[in-house]
């Protein structure tokens, strides 16, 4: 314990130099900005910034402080467009639209922005504390999580899909299945066989998440607004009450639960912030099901996914720093940054380069405080986005979305595909088919297939081995409960429920 404190102290001496403070601040601003923009994610931003770090001859700890700030800063930005425009800027902010946008329509956009900013800060900071003290043992536990355990975890996450859909569970399930189907497009990782590519070269690599999300949410929403002649649906900068202290306290338990869920999911290599925010939101919704406020603008429904998102992002850095194993694409690029500086990422990082490892951890305490201070006063300015005339705002958003999609792939085909998904999103909105389960099915479906395959080929096709570990048994029991719980009213005779 004392050792950790002195190491962390050493880290602060690195992080508190004027240059590193300035770089953390710069990273926070860039991160928030790319979080806001649909299409451009932290992965691309970091990969593009890395050559600049080398060209400017930044020392490795400074480069990592900047790049990591971009990474966790992006977790603060995704919520802004999700709440105000119903268009998530980041994959993990998809869940934030569910309660955030209704709040904005009620004129409480500022309150939703404030609580999500505070939630992001709580989730990230508590996770950095956990990471400072428990990094190595946590990472050891994380690698012992077997493919069979992942299958159970993803099955559990999928079983909660029905809860995301609003009124109609069957529609949510159907949407989730559609998402899983879309995830199957492309070259199959197990056998190299092409699936659903229709002979198209562009589809060989599968459908990019950005294309799907930008299409369904940004383009679909704009099509609907055009149809309603921009009158009815859009959120207004109302005179709704600002966030009160009482509401903050009310949301605090939800934030703490979300931090726990988010951090644990984040530490597991391969699971990500999207899974964390989905699990956290659905769990919170189930917990308060009887109140019936989720999906209609419940502040806890905003706080929960945003907290879990940031907690998972920090958790993702745990296996990266303590074992040298990337938990996601973005952390893989961060690891690549270490390599560029001739630092071998791996279990020896903390002993060989404590300045880099602890300097980074210390900078994350500072960076998250900066992000909170940066974000809270700006809430009012962000909310003013809604006062921009629609004829400026929506074409602008559309242009940025297209630029984002094109920047990732340089492919006109992806733009057409995004428009296709936009039409789909518009139709589904009219048919009251929820869009969030499509996106979650897309993310989870791919992970489910990969892990199920791994588990079965490791067990030589023996299905029973999916249920060997205590972790997977517990998760499967929870899955079963989650699936059967909504049916209890039908299973138990009506009188019994009434009496």
């Amino acid at each position, binding site marked *: 314990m004392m050792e950790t404190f002195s190491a962390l102290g050493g880290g602060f001496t690195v992080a508190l130099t004027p240059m590193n403070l300035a770089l953390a601040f710069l990273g926070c601003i860039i991160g928030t900005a790319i979080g806001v923009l649909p299409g451009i994610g932290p*992965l*691309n931003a*970091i*990969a*593009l910034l890395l*050559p600049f770090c*080398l*060209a400017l001859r930044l020392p490795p700890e400074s480069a990592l402080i900047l790049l990591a700030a971009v990474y966790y800063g992006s977790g603060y930005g995704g919520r802004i467009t999700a709440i105000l425009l119903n268009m998530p800027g980041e994959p993990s902010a998809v869940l934030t639209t569910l309660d955030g946008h209704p709040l904005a329509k009620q004129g409480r956009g500022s309150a939703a922005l404030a609580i999500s900013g505070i939630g992001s800060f709580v989730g990230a900071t508590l996770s950095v504390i956990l990471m400072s003290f428990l990094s190595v043992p946590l990472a050891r536990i*994380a*690698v*012992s*999580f*077997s*493919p069979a355990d992942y299958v159970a975890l993803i099955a559990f996450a999928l079983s909660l899909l029905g809860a995301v859909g609003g009124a109609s569970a069957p529609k949510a399930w159907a949407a989730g299945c559609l998402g899983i189907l879309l995830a199957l497009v492309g*070259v*199959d*990782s*197990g*056998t*190299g066989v092409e699936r659903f590519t229709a002979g198209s*070269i*562009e589809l*060989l*690599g599968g459908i*990019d998440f950005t294309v799907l999300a930008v299409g369904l949410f940004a383009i679909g929403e704009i099509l609907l607004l055009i149809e309603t002649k921009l009158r009815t649906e859009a959120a207004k900068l109302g005179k709704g009450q600002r966030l009160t202290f009482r509401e903050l306290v009310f949301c605090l338990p939800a934030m703490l639960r979300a931090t726990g869920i988010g951090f644990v999911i984040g530490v597991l*290599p*391969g699971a990500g912030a999207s899974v964390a925010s989905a699990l956290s939101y659905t769990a919170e919704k189930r917990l308060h099901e009887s109140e019936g406020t989720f999906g209609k603008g419940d502040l806890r429904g905003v706080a929960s996914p945003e907290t879990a998102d940031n907690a998972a992002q920090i958790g993702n850095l745990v*296996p990266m720093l303590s*074992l*040298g*194993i*990337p938990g996601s*694409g973005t952390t*893989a*690029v961060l*690891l*690549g940054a270490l*390599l*560029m*500086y*001739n630092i*071998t*990422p*791996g*279990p*020896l*990082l903390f002993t060989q380069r404590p300045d880099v490892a602890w300097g980074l951890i210390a900078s994350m305490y500072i960076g998250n405080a900066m992000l909170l201070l940066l974000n809270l006063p700006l809430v009012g300015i962000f909310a003013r986005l809604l006062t921009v005339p629609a004829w400026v705002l929506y074409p602008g958003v559309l242009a940025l979305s297209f630029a984002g999609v094109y920047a*990732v*792939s*340089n*492919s006109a085909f992806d733009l057409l595909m995004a428009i296709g998904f936009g039409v789909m999103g518009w139709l589904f909105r009219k048919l009251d088919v929820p869009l969030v389960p499509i996106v979650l099915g897309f993310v989870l479906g791919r992970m489910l297939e*990969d892990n199920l*395959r*791994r588990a079965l*080929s*490791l067990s*030589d096709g023996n299905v029973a081995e999916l249920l060997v570990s205590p972790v997977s048994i517990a998760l499967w029991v929870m899955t079963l409960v989650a699936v059967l719980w909504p049916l209890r009213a039908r299973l138990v005779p009506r009188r019994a429920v009434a009496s």
Partner: protein
Amino acid sequence: MYRRALLAASALLPAAAQAQNAGGFTPQNPECIAGAAPGGGFDISCRLTARMLNETGIVGPSIRTQNMPGGIGAVAINHINAQRRTDPNVIVAVSTGSWVNMATGRFGRFGENDVRWIGAIGADYGVIAVKKDSPYATLTDLVTALRANPGGVPMGAGGAVGSQDWTKAALVARAAGVDPRRMRYVPFEGGGQALAALLGGHIQMAPVDASEARGQFEAGEIRLLAVLAAERLPGTLSSVPTAKEQGFDAEWPIVRGFYGPPQMPDAAYNFWVNALRRLTAHPDWPDQRAAQGLFEFNLVGAEYEALAKRRTAEFRQLARDVGLVSQ
């Protein structure tokens, strides 16, 4: 730094003058296409090479890196063949993995004869990794176990069955006289996750790349049974024997290089070949290359073309042998 570059440039002046004058070609708005998202191997090849070519002054105009993900290079090769068959200003990053894809027909109808092979800038090498407490102490131990029960050693790496990661394991199996189709191979998303599964005890062997395994190896978390190189690797990895030393004919350099469009004019082709030749001979190059986890592998022009074609033919044969392609 700058002065060193200048000195180096002046030392190479006769060659430089020759290269610049060869056909009088100077690229305009040159571009390097990385057939994958930012951060991957193709991307690193492009950015490293472009930066160093510009920094050393070998190529004057700034080289832009363009990411074109899709099918691990399939989209890029189709783009080049469909729209830019004669473009003198574009080079495309390529690796051993692309040769595997050409051999197994994953690049559509385009193969090794549909591009102009410019040169290689470096290589990574396959390694056979096991956990520190593994019962296998040498490659012979592992091969004995595979011979006794080919499906008894669960293994995994970053690519699918038929990918370059899988081929590393297949080469070892074949050298042992074991049918690669009977191995129990599990694909993961990248070598990092395969190493996590190795540390977690879910798989017993991971045929990953030397650059991926180095950190865990230096920390004593994993043991490396063999490097799939012709000679031992430098640095901390020099204690690891080659497969050949242990009596198994399995070599697997992951060669990283570039190709140009199929009808790139000779003047442009010679310009780029010379540019890579001068880059790999530059005094600043070895450090920059090593920082990317790449070992020395300098081969340009006709020799590189011969290697690309020979390797692709070999993989085609291997893929046929193990039933991955039907023709």
